[in-house]
């Protein structure tokens, strides 16, 4: 039991931190521009595919460096030439645009790379077990994923709270007009933030691609979960997003590890149903079976009872 617990915690951490890399960019973009970027996970997917193509020619490490830059540049272009244009028509139009972009990116990825899964491999350098616990290996690559995620979190935190740019960004979040009046180029800051946010998603894609499989559906699988995190954490709150990411990662991991389900509940209540009961599907439901959709349940509950999320102040 202990081994399951320990490994579930580790797995939850890896997933949670990965989710946070996506969520941090999304939150940053949201707090700056008020745009919930539906296509955020698409940039994550692009990161994986770019890195895959680069890794074929130049190896994994080159991909880790170049792919996020490409993704970030693409993100900045999208902001400059498309999002800014749609911005005039309001938030709904922006949300719809990013929705369309997500759709388009998925199709484009299939066009350029095909619909098959891609053989994107982790580097040989990290192909060894970091440690073995209770007979299960924890690969060095997963350790590397944790390191990168934590590193990015710290760098982001430092940048936002200590550096001059961070202070301008923080000010621009709360008082965009004042910042503009102070002579800062707010549109440029927006473009840069969008670029950085999408580049972060790109990094996540680069390091997640080899582990979580690089295929055209990878954005869809992750996309709405990241949305859920940002909303649960509280729109615009980086700390909230961090907590929510880990929470979702651990929740899913523990839910899968547990073998609890309705049968246990019914046993405990002393109830029994035959297999022909019309609600048999419900009585035999188990936690692992529904683990991947638990975040959506959480999302709906949070929005009903605390629409601002865990740490958020802004509602819209």
């Amino acid at each position, binding site marked *: 039991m202990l*081994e*399951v617990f320990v*490994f*579930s915690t580790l*797995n*939850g951490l*890896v*997933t949670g931190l990965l989710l946070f890399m996506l969520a941090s960019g999304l939150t940053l973009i949201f707090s700056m521009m008020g745009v919930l970027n539906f296509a955020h996970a698409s940039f994550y997917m692009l990161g994986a595919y770019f890195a895959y193509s680069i890794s074929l020619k130049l190896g994994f490490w080159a991909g880790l460096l170049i792919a996020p830059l490409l993704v970030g540049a693409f993100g900045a272009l999208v902001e400059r030439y498309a999002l800014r244009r749609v911005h005039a028509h309001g938030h709904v139009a922006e949300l719809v645009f990013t929705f369309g972009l997500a759709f388009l990116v998925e199709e484009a990825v*299939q*066009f*350029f790379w*095909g*619909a*098959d*899964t*891609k*053989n994107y*491999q982790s580097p040989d350098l990290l192909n060894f*077990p970091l440690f*073995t616990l*209770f*007979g*299960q*290996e924890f*690969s060095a*690559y997963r350790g590397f994923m944790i390191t990168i995620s934590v590193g990015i979190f710290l760098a982001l935190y430092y940048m936002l709270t200590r550096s001059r740019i961070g202070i301008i960004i923080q000010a621009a979040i709360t008082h965009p007009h004042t910042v503009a009046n102070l002579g800062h180029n707010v549109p440029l800051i927006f473009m840069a933030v969008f670029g950085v946010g999408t580049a972060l998603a790109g990094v996540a894609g680069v390091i997640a691609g080899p*582990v*979580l*499989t690089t*295929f*055209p*559906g*990878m954005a869809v*699988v*992750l996309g709405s*979960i990241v949305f859920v995190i940002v909303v649960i954490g509280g729109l615009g709150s980086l700390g909230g997003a961090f907590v929510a990411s880990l929470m979702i990662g651990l929740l*899913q*991991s523990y839910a*899968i*590890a547990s073998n609890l389900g309705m049968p246990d509940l019914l046993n405990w209540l002393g109830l029994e149903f035959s297999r022909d009961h019309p609600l048999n599907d419900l009585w035999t439901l*188990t936690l*692992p*079976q*529904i*683990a*991947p*959709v638990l975040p959506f349940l959480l999302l709906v509950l949070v929005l009903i009872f605390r629409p601002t999320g865990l740490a958020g102040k802004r509602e819209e």
Partner: protein
Amino acid sequence: MKRLHRSITFSITLKSLLAGLVLSLFSSISAQEPVRIAFIDPLSGTFASIGTSGLKQLQYAADELFNSKGGILGGRMIEIVPLDNKQSPTDTQIQFRRAVSEGLRIIFQGNSSAVANTLNSTISRHNRRNPGQEILQINYSAVDPILTNEQCSFWHFRFDAHAVMKLNVLTDYIAMNPEIKKVYIIGQDYSFGQVVSDTSIELLREKRPDIEIVGNEFHPIGQVKDFTPYVTKIVSSDADAVITGNFGADMVSLARSIIDSGLDIPIYTFYAAYDGITATLGADGIDKIYLVHNDAGNPLPSEERLAYTKNFKRLNPNNDMTQFRITNALQMLVQAMEASQSTDPFDIALALEDMRFTNMSGEELWMRGEDHQIIQPLHISVHTDQNIVVDADNSGFGLYRDFSVLGDETVVDHSCRMRRPRR
């Protein structure tokens, strides 16, 4: 960039246009009118590569075996009409009606049991309501047992072994391995996953009562980001083997996670080869991935079969001959047409019933008349790079045959009570 069926279609459409023109001028040549066969499978979207690959194999079989040799029924060509259903039951309906609209009477379809099921019931309804314009369903790949059991239909013929038959062979194979004491079953939460789970448990209990089922897990289809938490459970259960019916990305991710965790146990699968999966698993999957299927992989059983496969590869360098049963199905279909000298679905169906056929690999096939289920030898192959003559995904890796059973041994009972139309 790699899917090419348009060119085929287009040239065919031109050809048929021309043929139509000629036809209207000289109606006496109507004997040379092509035999048109609809192919309804995903040709765009997520599952396009699988459907397109099937289309190429069918087209190749038609061209190579019949059209290049003067056609069938005294000189008529076979024309394959591809219709894209995006693997959606709704779009399948639309394409079915298009087929009806264009006077196509024979439909090849394989991907997704959900699609096959809805197509089956649609065709039953259609044939009941439109006597004289019946449609025939040639199912080359959907393995839901229900199609030749409770929902069996006179108008449906299956050319693949259904899930229970495959599991029967797979559990035989597992039962032969005395080292396996604990088995973990994991699968996608839908009908096929459930069949795999229920049937494996039942059959293993019968064949090896000492084997313990240490896990029986379902996960939502296509929703799991990371399989590591599931693998943690597999590890802690001390399983000696894993059985899974997963396909696509869920299959790759699961296998990857199992291998990454350092777990060195066999994984018994149905769909863990080709379409990028073999290449993605690569060296990690060697001697770990086992696959039950009806296609005699490496070494290829006959010279004729080898030449046939190599020629396909030459024409379609980016595709593999993944479903040899398509060739079986077309050959048997043509044999039925020749035998009945008719292209009418009713006549073809009667001729197909209880047909026995020796295929290119030298295997004996029998289309059981009671439920329209093909009975054929089944094989279990292992993922490896040793002795691979025909590889998968151009990766150097492929499937090597490890265990085979003859058709007779794969037979399982059926519960089909077929309603036969009278003429």
